[in-house]
């Protein structure tokens, strides 16, 4: 079952997971741990996108919608944990008090309990993905039209989050959050425990999705990206598989969103913004959308670079970043990951040349 390609992928996964999990042994500076947790979480979100786009060919420009909904679910739970301290008015979040809301709306009621909030954080994006997937894929809508519909969905959710200020905190979002405490463990976003939570989630999702892509269903998804009609004529219900991939990708994004709300200690409509959503597509493409690990690495590297670039090149960091994206598209179409292939290809070409030289000399000496 293990051909050389998937063996290589497995080794890549193990090295990456080891590096990510061993990192805290090298650093214990609170800010750096927090910063890397944030990069890993954005990597996790991009991992989800790579499953939908890289593997199944669904270009989801609205991926941040699932990410943001996850963030809002967790933020609301953490908000309701702090209520008595800050606003001191009968358990209502501050933005509801400001908008003269009398009592907590029914749909926020379940968010008093952590396990319900976490299920919602993953469940709501998955539910939305299934509904949208059924609406789009049953009608065999494909390519750019899917991208446009997902983008429109994103803008709708963004506008509603800002407009329904009474229930969502509007443009300021939900701020002043407590830290998540489950089973006695407090996840302080600047601590190693939180870093392990995000790194652990990333590694589990990476390995889980990696294995999934190697199952028959995973192979079918790649076939769908390649030629959906042929897949239909083999008897597979293409739209069902597309919805599966879309929902899985949304679930992973929801999980990443929840972690993001915890690491930044707030949730805002910009988590459901067009620029963040397009950035995720960019990170996925820069890393290499065809491989889960490459997309994740792409997100981590671009965000790390963006962080340090904007610190040292205050005036020109956007110029450098824009130029970087253009160069990637022109010279490394399959993303940074294809650097490996480029080297292997050049190495193969040199090997072949040696082989010819070798055989011709043998012939010349009459050995072969």
């Amino acid at each position, binding site marked *: 079952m293990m051909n050389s390609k998937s063996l290589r992928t497995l080794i890549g996964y193990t090295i990456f997971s080891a590096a990510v999990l061993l990192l805290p042994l090298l650093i214990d500076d609170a800010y750096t741990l927090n910063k890397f947790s944030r990069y890993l979480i954005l990597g996790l979100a991009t991992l989800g996108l790579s499953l939908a786009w890289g593997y199944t060919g669904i270009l989801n420009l609205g991926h941040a919608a699932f990410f943001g909904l996850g963030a809002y679910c967790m933020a609301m739970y953490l908000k309701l944990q702090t209520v008595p301290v800050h606003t001191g008015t009968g358990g209502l979040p501050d933005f509801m008090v400001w908008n003269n809301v009398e009592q907590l709306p029914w749909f926020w009621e379940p968010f008093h309990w952590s396990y319900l909030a976490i299920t919602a954080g993953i469940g709501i994006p998955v539910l939305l993905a299934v509904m949208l997937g059924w609406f789009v894929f049953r009608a065999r809508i494909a390519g750019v039209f899917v991208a446009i519909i997902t983008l429109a969905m994103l803008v709708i959710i963004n*506008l509603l989050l800002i407009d329904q200020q009474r229930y969502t905190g509007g443009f300021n979002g939900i701020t002043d959050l407590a830290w998540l405490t489950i089973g006695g463990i407090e996840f302080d976003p600047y601590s190693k425990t939180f870093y392990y939570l995000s790194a652990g989630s990333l590694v589990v999702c990476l390995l889980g999705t990696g294995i999934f892509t190697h199952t028959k269903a995973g192979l079918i998804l790649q076939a769908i990206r390649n030629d959906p009609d042929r897949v239909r004529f083999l008897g597979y219900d293409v739209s069902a598989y597309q919805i599966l991939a879309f929902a899985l990708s949304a679930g992973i994004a929801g999980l990443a969103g929840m972690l993001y709300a915890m690491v930044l200690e707030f949730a805002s409509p910009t988590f459901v913004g067009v620029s963040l959503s397009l950035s995720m597509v*960019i990170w996925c493409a820069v890393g290499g959308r065809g491989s889960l690990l490459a997309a994740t690495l792409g997100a981590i590297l671009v965000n790390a670079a963006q962080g340090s670039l904007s610190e040292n090149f205050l005036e020109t960091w956007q110029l450098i970043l*824009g130029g970087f994206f253009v160069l990637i598209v022109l010279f490394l179409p399959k993303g940074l990951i294809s650097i490996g292939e480029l080297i292997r290809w050049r190495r193969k070409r040199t090997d072949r040349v040696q082989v010819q030289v070798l055989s011709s000399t043998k012939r010349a000496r009459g050995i072969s």
Partner: protein
Amino acid sequence: MEVFISQIFTGLSIASILLLVALGLAIIYGSMGVINLAHGEFVMLGAYATWFLQQYAGIGLIPSLVLVFLMVGSIGWVIERGIVRHLYHRPLDTILATWGIGIMLQQLVRLTAGAELRYVELPESLSRSVDLLGINFSVYRLFILLVTGLLILLTWLLLMRTEYGTKLRAITQNREMAECSGIDSQRIFGLTFAFGAGLAGVAGSLVAPIKSVSPDMGTHYVVDAFMVVVLGGVGSVAGTAAASGILGEVTAGMAYLLNDTLAKVIVFIAVVMLIRFRPQGLFSQLVRK
């Protein structure tokens, strides 16, 4: 009764602005299949070009339109020759490349023209409002309607009645066959991209006087322009015009009945429904693949 008419007029003026911005995109995306996320930046460049001509060369708004078309058009041509030309077989990658170009253009303008809000003066004749059959119309909005109508006509004539236009439509239908019959698609694509960018530049200079000019004013237009192009049917100028008309009226109507935010939400939901039930767009004929 006049409220109704002024509402219709508001819808028309919103539609004209939507069409101005979307027309350039319809040409570039429609005929070349290039998803140009830097289209908003071309609008911004047009606005800045108008400001620059007015500030340093003292050229008024109306004469500057042609100059701006040429300036932004040539920038578009350079970008096409330099970067976009290599990406025709990879439509989805143009998203990444043009997004990168957009970021660079924004930052270049911010470094050169500065981050402050710039403003474009309106000639005295256009800044008044006039009363027609008892209703108050802004002269400048009428002027925009006029120019938009002119531009659609010009684009339609260019596409349908010129040799360049026929060649472009040939390439859109079947690029390989067009090249076999001797059409230099590279040159045509270069000119088309420049033409689309020029149109966006003109849109920028027309929009500037009713709002402000800032480095990031472009991003606001890209999503709406895409909705109009996709809704109108890929590659059909008439479709784009009709789609922006509908979207303009719906936005104005909803904004009046409800508020601007919900108006935008309703418009986007309408677009999603239309794409779902008529993927090929409202007006383009069903091309049997």
